């Protein structure tokens, strides 16, 4: 153990059964599995259309050991609002309502419903499993696709260099909505993720947890490398782990020494086309973002 902090034990009970049809090494399925451990049995789950919904519920089978509902792509937050109010009408105040929605179902098409849900203050744990594209339909860009990533709708060519817009910062938008608990996480840091989901569950009101979930086929790396890729995202500062409790920002993990972004980018096919200049530009963007976060953390 040599001076290391004792780790938070991961609850053993599995609420996502094996045998679902997600790819080997699916970061999103791992995210759901870990989050369910934190949420516990007494939870009702709403899922948006996307990889998780499609791979876990091929009728008549299901991987869900908790009550689960899927309605459409863009309305998970609205469905969850209805579930939560129905529980209130029934006087059941001990049941947690949780959403698992992809980045597309959250930052793009589902954004209005999410904004409405948190503005109304529903007591829902909203978890965005972010694999940075529309994976279920075959890797098309979303508002959460990072700059320069090649997807099937932002291919890298002579004119286009992959995605050309910054990643939409929905956690920050959630903070600006006054959401009492907002956190980012990554499946490669399971203790941190579980701790945050447990906190989110305790909040009386909406909580938003945005989880980076590497995707072997979508990002282009071997399915055995999911955890490593996620670690690199965090160690390079491409993905930052933090939480905002009642508006108070806190970095929950600070890499001892940030690794160059190249180490992260070079490992994935979606960034294979990058020139040295482009990698440098990404490094600059990450450095700037990190500086800003440091300032925030000092406040």
């Amino acid at each position, binding site marked *: 153990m040599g001076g290391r902090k004792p780790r938070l034990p991961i609850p053993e009970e599995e609420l996502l059964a094996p045998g679902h049809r997600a790819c080997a090494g699916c970061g999103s399925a791992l995210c759901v599995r870990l989050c369910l451990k934190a949420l516990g049995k007494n939870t009702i789950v709403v899922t948006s259309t996307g990889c998780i919904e499609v791979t876990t519920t091929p*009728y008549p089978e299901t991987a869900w050991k908790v*009550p689960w509902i*899927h*309605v459409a792509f863009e309305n998970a937050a609205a469905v969850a*609002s209805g579930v939560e109010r129905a529980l209130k009408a*029934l006087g059941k105040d001990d049941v947690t309502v949780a959403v698992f929605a992809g980045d597309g179902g959250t930052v793009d098409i589902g954004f*209005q*419903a999410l904004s409405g849900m948190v503005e109304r203050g529903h007591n829902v744990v909203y978890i965005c499993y972010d694999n940075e594209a529309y994976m279920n339909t075959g890797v098309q860009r979303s508002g959460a696709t990072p700059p320069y990533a090649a997807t099937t709708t932002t291919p890298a060519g002579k004119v286009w260099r992959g995605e050309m817009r910054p990643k939409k910062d929905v956690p920050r938008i959630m903070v600006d909505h006054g959401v009492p608990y907002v956190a980012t996480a990554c499946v490669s840091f399971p203790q941190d993720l579980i701790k945050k989901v447990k906190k989110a569950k305790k909040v009386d009101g909406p909580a938003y947890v945005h989880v980076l979930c590497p995707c072997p086929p979508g990002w282009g790396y071997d399915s055995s490398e999911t955890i490593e890729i996620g670690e690199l995202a965090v160690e390079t500062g491409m993905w930052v782990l933090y939480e905002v409790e009642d508006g108070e920002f806190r970095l929950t993990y600070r890499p001892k020494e940030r690794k160059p972004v190249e180490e992260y980018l070079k490992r994935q096919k979606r960034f294979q086309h990058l020139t040295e200049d482009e990698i440098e530009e990404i490094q600059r963007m990450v450095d700037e973002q990190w500086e800003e976060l440091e300032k925030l953390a000092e406040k």
Partner: protein
Amino acid sequence: MSESEVRVINGNYAAAEAVRLVDVDVIAAYPITPQTPVVEYLSEFIANGELDAEFIHVESEHSAISAVIGASATGVRVFTATASQGLALMHEVLFIASGMRLPIVMAVANRALSAPINIWCDHSDAMAQRDACWIQLYCESNQEILDTIIQAYRIAEHEDVLLPVMVCFDGFTLSHTLEPVEIPPKEKVQEFVGEFEPTHCRLDPEEPMTLGPVGGPDCYMEFKKMQDEAMKEAERVIGEVNREFADEFGRSYGNGLVEEYNTEDADYIVIAMGSVCGTVKHVIDEERPDVGLIRVKSYRPFPGEQIAEIIQDREGVVTIDRAHSYGAMPPLWTDVKAHAPDVEISSTIAGLGGRDIRPEDVLKAIEVAEKGKGTDEPVWINVNA
């Protein structure tokens, strides 16, 4: 038990009042003319403690229908209301509500669809949702709105049906027009609708269920066939509920599916839906005793066989549609014709976007049937060339 009370109210109030009497648990709705007052009345009821329900102030109709799906699946009675663009915005989710077999009740204050934007009545909004597998019931009076919403919960929740119900009433003509309405005592309505006991669909950690899964080519058609069978069952159940309602409250609407007016010895038959039927009845009473009316109350399920039987051996038959299927024949005509291919049926289109359908317009429609016109192309009534 307290007594019924007659009050002079508009159609929107009648809808809200029915929801109060049924004592719905969760309401999610978004305002749109001419439905807006329903949302406001319900808000007032809740604000004043006259209705103990959760009201979700959703940010769109898409979220309204989504939220009531979530609530209904959790095991409570729900209500929503909309019209026109709002109903169109719900389109995608309507199919999911029926596919999940949730007994949702929705009021629709019928209004034209844009463009050009138009807030007045026609049936284009509901007709565009014809194939969403929702039961569609059309009302002729404010009393009927109140009575039909109460009945709708019984129909939707019936174990042989389990389908959502749209209760449609004409925007402004009913929604904003005052009529005397008999309001039954709440206890009596409560007794009539009974407790809601969800069976097949319930989100409960005690007994986890997976709702809304993926259904591939191996099972999708079976699910859809079951929905169609439920629609057929609904035809019977609507009739039963109509009769039972008559026993309890002393009012009925034809056989619940169609209402016949002066059809027995009529040479000509007009087939129509909604508030225009009052005008048709007036024309029959005042000027045309040789004409009868079939008022289609249930458009889905469509009582086609009954209608086909009634229209046999007449001098002429004409439909009045308040909607159109552009480049084809209008919806009501098409449905009737499908069940009576051997009967010559004339088609008219009237009252789009709130154009008045006056007694003289009804006479024009009858004239179309007399002349045997409009059988292969609809005749537009009261439209400038």
